[in-house]
């Protein structure tokens, strides 16, 4: 039974690992894109004008209320269609958006909404005095962000961001519905071809769990580093 999991054909282990690599690629890309969107979103929500603030609020509310599965389908089909319509209208050639890029964009868009909230909360938890002091020293906004805001908010943002990373790794499974060959779809195909459903779903579950546990261990270290010199927090 277990030889089905061998990493070289006729075993299907290699497919699962390839799927895992795809999943991690998407998760990483989506998480990074989410961070970029989240940073802009958080700044928009905190320091933007009333219009920007309302638009970011609409964005985060909608994305957090509509199931990812539905968003993925809408953005995957409608989104690429729209881009191509616009490109054609502007006289450019159509582009072919690969499953990888589409997956990253879709999940990144979802992650961005959550990252906005996490980062906004983290920035708000920086004592006002620190920012005022930085301004008083004549720091430019860029320097202030790099030297004060980012390091000071990091410990507050890390738990939320860590959580987002874990969500990202698991949400890649949803891309199975648009036929992208990440871990869950590879598992389904392997299970369908060999009829060893239980075995393959268990194996995939273990792989996901391994990713979660490894990530948690690394995040724990990063967190300890980011919190260095701060009193340890007991959970409320």
């Amino acid at each position, binding site marked *: 039974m277990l030889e089905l999991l061998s990493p070289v*054909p006729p075993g299907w282990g290699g*497919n699962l690992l390839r799927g895992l690599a795809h999943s991690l690629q998407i998760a990483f890309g989506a998480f990074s894109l989410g961070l970029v969107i989240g940073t802009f979103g958080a700044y928009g929500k905190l320091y933007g004008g009333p219009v920007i603030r309302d638009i970011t609020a609409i964005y985060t509310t909608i994305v957090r209320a509509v199931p990812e599965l539905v968003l993925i389908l809408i953005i995957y089909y409608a989104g690429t*269609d729209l881009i191509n319509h616009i490109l054609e209208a502007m006289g450019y050639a*159509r582009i072919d958006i690969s499953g990888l*890029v589409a997956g990253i964009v879709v999940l990144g868009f979802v992650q961005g909404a959550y990252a906005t909230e996490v980062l906004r909360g983290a920035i708000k938890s920086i004592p006002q005095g620190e920012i005022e002091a930085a301004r008083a020293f004549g720091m430019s906004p860029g320097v202030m962000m790099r030297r004060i805001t980012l390091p000071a908010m990091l410990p507050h943002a890390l738990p939320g961001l860590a959580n987002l990373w874990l969500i990202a790794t698991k949400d890649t499974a949803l891309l199975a519905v648009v036929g992208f060959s990440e871990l869950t779809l590879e598992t389904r195909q392997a299970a*369908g*071809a060999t009829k060893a459903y239980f075995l393959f779903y268990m194996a995939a579950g273990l792989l996901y769990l391994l990713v979660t546990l490894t990530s948690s261990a690394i995040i724990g270290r990063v967190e300890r580093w980011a919190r260095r010199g701060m009193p340890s927090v007991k959970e409320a």
Partner: protein
Amino acid sequence: MKAFLKTAVTAGTLIVAAMGAAGAETIKVGIAAEPYPPFASPDASGKWQGWEVEMAMAICEEAKLDCVITPVAWDGIIPALLTKKIDMITASMSITEDRKKTIDFSDKYYNTPTVVLGSRDVEMDATPEGMKGKVLGVQVSTVHQVYAKKHFADTAAEIKEYQTQDEANQDLAAGRIDATQADSIAMETFAASDTGKACCEIKGKVADDIEVLGPGVGVGLRKDDTELKEKINTAIKGIRENGKYDAISKEYFNFDIYGG
């Protein structure tokens, strides 16, 4: 911040440019991402194989097209075609009037009867009366779903819809449904497998309904793609005549899959 934005924009442009370059010239042949043996299923090295995959490549070769096999979820295969993620569908898609409203089809490249596969423990046949009180599983957006709804909905206890035929087979083996209805070849292949032998048997062919079941399986195409359609029709005729069609079919089937 400005420098960062600049890099981001440049990177974005590069990605878009790269994607544009990659997508030129090749014809993307959409197949369902779910295994459907013996027509299309991936092997352990991730390569797609089966009668339909070979046939698609043969058609492409005959029409001198540069084709790549692109698996797409069955559920989204028509949107994928319409949004040009793929250029043609070779996924055992039957030619029907309903589908013709949205997409176009080539001439048929095979036609097989529709059968009902049922559990050995259940007494039934492929008629509305024989279906009485039974739970029937069909794959969504197939002619079989439409057929089952039209002919069996009144007598069957329930008609369950599955994303893939493979899952319906699995549930049949697990005893969750009493029968499933699909293409005879896919059903016979399953009935001959170890799992299939243990649980199920062919209960019979369903009565024909050309309106629902259509004239056979064709290559799905976009409506405005008449040039490609002509090329493919010529190619299908070509491989039928030069013996390639029979050569490929002989490896899989011991009867004429093209149908009458």
